[in-house]
C-alpha cells in the first residue's frame, strides 16, 4: 500500500457509501443531498489521481449546478419532505435490480481489472497547464462543438419549459 492507495481507499469508500445511500434512501430529498456527497468525494478521487482541473470542473458543474437542478426538479414535482414509501418499487423488482446491477458491476470490474489493473502506475506531476494547452490546441474543435451542444441543450430546456400543455387555456393567453 502506497500513500496514494491509502488516500484513494478512504475517499473511494466514502464515495461508494454515499452513492449506495443516494440510491437506497427513502427520503427523496436526502437522495439528492447524498448525491452531492458522492460526486464531491468523486472529485476527491480525481485529485488523488492527479487530475486537479477535472476535480475542479466536477465540483463546479456537478455540485454547483447539476445537483441544484435536481433539487429544483424535486421541489417542482412536489416531492414529499421526509420519509416516503409512495414511490417505492416492489420488493421483487428491487431484488431483481440488485441481482442485475451486482452482476453487471462484477462483470465490468473483472474485465477492467484483468485488462488494465495489474501493476502500479506512477502519477504525473501537476497537469493543469498541459491540459490547457491540449484543450486549446489538439482538442479545440471538439471543444467548440461542445459549446454548440450546450447552447442547443439550453435552448431546448427553455423551449420545453415553455411548451403548452392545455390548448384550451392557452388560446386567449396566446401570442399577445
Amino acid at each position, binding site marked *: 500500500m502506497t500513500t496514494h492507495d491509502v488516500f484513494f481507499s478512504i475517499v473511494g469508500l466514502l464515495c461508494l457509501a454515499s452513492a449506495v445511500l443516494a440510491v437506497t434512501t427513502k427520503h427523496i430529498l436526502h437522495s439528492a443531498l447524498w*448525491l452531492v456527497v458522492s460526486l464531491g468525494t468523486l472529485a476527491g478521487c480525481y485529485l488523488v489521481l492527479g487530475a486537479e482541473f477535472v476535480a475542479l470542473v466536477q465540483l463546479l458543474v456537478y455540485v454547483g449546478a*447539476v445537483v441544484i437542478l435536481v433539487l429544483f*426538479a424535486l421541489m417542482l414535482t412536489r416531492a414529499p419532505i421526509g420519509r416516503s414509501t409512495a414511490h417505492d418499487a416492489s420488493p421483487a423488482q428491487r431484488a*431483481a*435490480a440488485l441481482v*442485475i446491477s451486482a452482476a453487471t*458491476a462484477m462483470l*465490468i470490474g473483472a474485465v477492467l481489472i484483468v485488462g488494465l489493473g495489474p501493476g502500479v502506475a506512477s*502519477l504525473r506531476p501537476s497537469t493543469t497547464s498541459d491540459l490547457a494547452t491540449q484543450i486549446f490546441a489538439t482538442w479545440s474543435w471538439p471543444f467548440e462543438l461542445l459549446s454548440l451542444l450546450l447552447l442547443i441543450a439550453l435552448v431546448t430546456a427553455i423551449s420545453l419549459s415553455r411548451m403548452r400543455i392545455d390548448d384550451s387555456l392557452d388560446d386567449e393567453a396566446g401570442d399577445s
Partner: protein
Amino acid sequence: MIHLWLPLALSAALFGVGLYGVLARRNAVLVLVGVELMLGAVGLLLVTAGVKHADAYLAGQTLTIFLITIAAAEIAVALGLVVLAFRARGQIDVTAARGDDE
C-alpha cells in the same frame, strides 16, 4: 504510485450502484440520480485510463471534462422533460401506465 485496481474497482462498483438506482426507483428524478452516478463511474474510468496510458494529448482528462459537460446538457434537458411530464400528468412515476393520466 498507485495500484490501478483500486480506482477500477470503484468505477465498476459505482456503475453497479447507479444501475441499481435506475432499475429500482420509480420517481423519474431519482432515476436521473442513478444515471449521474453511472456517468461519474465512466469519468473515473477515463481518468484512470489516462493515468495508465500516459499519452501526450492527455486524452483521459480531456474526455472526462467533455463528459461532464455532456452530462450537464443531458441533465438540463432531462429535467425539463420531467417537469413537463409532471405538468401534463400530475405525477412522475415511471411505472405508471399511460392510460391512467386522469
